[in-house]
């Protein structure tokens, strides 16, 4: 099996179309990342783009709050000045966080910031209200018991949270969300002819008549397809990380998750949150990869299979624009982009009885189910695969 996988891997990467598609992906990502950099960071002349990285990092505790109050005179800020501060790299973390608490509080800013303990108490109430509000738009409505369970989890958020410069990570996440779908299109293009009978890298009479030409050859191609998809995804992530590290630096991996997603209730770092996002993206990549290969086995004609694969991926992406939350949450593309396109923040929760199940777990379960169905259909197809 290993030998077949190696040969199939070489065949796929020897294809000029594969190389071209991946190179185009890289060039597009680099270009769009630079374009976004200049749009967000250019000065008024539009010629110079600079990043200020002199963020004050550390725990958002009373000492930090006092520092903000003293150095920036926050009580005197009007709306425009507050907005300016949010744009300011050094304090945007902290101010975004304070702004979130302020939005949900009836108290004056002086009262909110008067005491660290009460500040975080108000913060936790704000998180609870935000989650309850977001649930109004979900198909699954929380009961009072569910909210009590969530509140219990919110109480366990470790405070004070750690803030600091994270512009690079923030822009990486933003661009990842924007450009992620390109990876799915490249995969559709590269892998849609892997089982077709009219392509040099596909299946022909000769291979079907060989001892390992059916079961092992097909399984090896499926493994190879997944490895190739994984590689393309890794290249995409690598390019994005390197470019953002060079443009912004990737400081802030150790910050609290709440410094970016204010309603998150996990006690993990922002870096761990990014890894969860990337893992979700990987799951979607693998699901789409196996779906594309199934289309390839069923259709057997390279051009039609490519066209259909791209259409299916396009349709899945388009379906993420639905206002139906159930349909949205079942969509595999939404697994990867949920954290950017929804009102639910980093995570949202379901309940079986009193057991709280995060959407991440639902995603894993749905992913397994989709894999199982695709696998069943694939095996059924390749056992009786003919060239007619």
């Amino acid at each position, binding site marked *: 099996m290993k*030998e*077949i996988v190696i*040969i199939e891997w070489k*065949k796929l990467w*020897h294809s000029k179309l594969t190389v071209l598609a991946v190179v185009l992906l890289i060039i597009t990502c680099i270009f769009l990342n630079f374009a976004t950099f200049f749009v967000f960071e250019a000065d008024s002349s539009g010629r110079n783009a600079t990043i200020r990285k002199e963020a004050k990092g550390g725990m958002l505790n009373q000492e930090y709050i006092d520092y903000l109050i003293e150095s920036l005179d926050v009580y005197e800020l009007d709306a425009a000045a507050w907005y300016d501060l949010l744009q300011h790299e050094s304090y945007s973390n902290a101010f975004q966080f304070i702004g979130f608490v302020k939005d949900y509080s009836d108290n004056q800013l002086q009262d909110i910031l008067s005491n660290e303990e009460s500040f975080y108490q108000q913060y936790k109430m704000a998180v609870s209200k935000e989650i309850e509000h977001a649930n109004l738009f979900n198909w699954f409505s929380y009961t009072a018991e569910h909210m009590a369970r969530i509140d219990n989890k919110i109480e366990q958020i470790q405070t004070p949270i750690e803030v600091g410069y994270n512009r690079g990570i923030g822009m990486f996440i933003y661009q990842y969300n924007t450009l992620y779908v390109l990876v799915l299109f490249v995969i559709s293009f590269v892998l849609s002819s892997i089982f077709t009978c009219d392509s*040099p*890298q596909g299946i*022909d*009479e*000769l*291979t*079907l*008549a*060989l*001892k*390992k*030409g*059916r*079961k*092992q*050859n097909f399984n090896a191609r499926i493994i190879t397809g997944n490895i190739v998809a994984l590689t393309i995804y890794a290249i995409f992530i690598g390019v994005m990380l390197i470019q953002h590290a060079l443009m912004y630096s990737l400081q802030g991996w150790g910050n609290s998750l709440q410094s970016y997603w204010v309603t998150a209730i996990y006690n993990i770092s922002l870096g761990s949150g990014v890894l969860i996002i990337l893992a979700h993206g990987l799951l979607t990549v693998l699901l789409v990869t196996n779906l594309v290969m199934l289309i390839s086995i069923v259709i057997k004609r390279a051009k039609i299979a490519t066209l259909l694969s791209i259409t299916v991926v396009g349709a899945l992406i388009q379906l993420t624009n639905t206002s139906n939350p159930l349909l949205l949450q079942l969509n595999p593309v939404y697994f990867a982009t949920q954290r950017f396109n929804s009102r639910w923040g980093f995570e949202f929760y379901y309940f079986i009885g009193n057991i709280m199940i995060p959407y991440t777990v639902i995603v894993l379960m749905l992913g397994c189910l989709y894999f199982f169905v695709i696998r069943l259909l694939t095996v059924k197809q390749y056992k*009786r695969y*003919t*060239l*007619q």
Partner: protein
Amino acid sequence: MILQITNLYKSYRSKEALQDINLILTAGTYGLLGENGAGKSTLMRILTTIDFPTKGTITFDGEDIIKLDENYREMIGYMPQDYTVYPSFTAQNFLEYMGVLKGIPKEELDKKIPEVLAFVNLSEVANKKVKSFSGGMKRRLGIAQAIINDPKILILDEPTSGLDAKERIRFSNIISAMSKDKIVILSTHIMSDIEAISNHLIIINKGQLIEATEIENLVEKVKGKVWEVVIDQEQFNLLSKERNVIRRKQEGENIRVRYVGEPYEGLENQSLEPTLEDYYVSVCL
């Protein structure tokens, strides 16, 4: 070693490609003959498990070949009418790929590849890309991959098409050298190839089995019925309406004609030794 085909049918939508084929094949070389679209390639594809019968069974030593699956395919070598080679593959790469898919261990494959390349006289071009090969070289490479696993059943679809005279002789010799203790099935339109290589003939027409016997028996059937005459155009017109003309050759004003049937009265008929072509043209067409 018995390959048995029982009540085999294959249909594609409304077209019956094969109908009620029954055959028992033992070690030997079988020529498969039939017009274009007669069902030869379909039968070969089913024998290699590339395609599946609509009805009927094929067994090897009593076991269904579909159930035998890999154990059956391990025993076969197949060369299709045409095959695709990945553009960047050299002959060596291609044979490595085929060898891996045939489940041949690497050490054995390293020994086998130079052997089969030498056998088909392609050693010197082992590292050249297959896409630069002539039709004949590609055919020989096809044979090399078919025999690399030393198959018990060798199935060759139109193996001599596109080969020049020298290559056809070479090919005949290759097959003859291999046919001992194997079931070799080859389809071709070239009668002389079948006569030179095969000892059995299977004739299929419009999906139906017409004949399956030893070539000697078939030739025997037209013994004493093959004649040659030299006649003018007017006589030829009459003769061709009443007899099966095998060949005609213009010789000035006259025509030298080879035909099968009772001797035509009033002509100087010269008796000839019959060939397989005489039988096929007179009986099957």
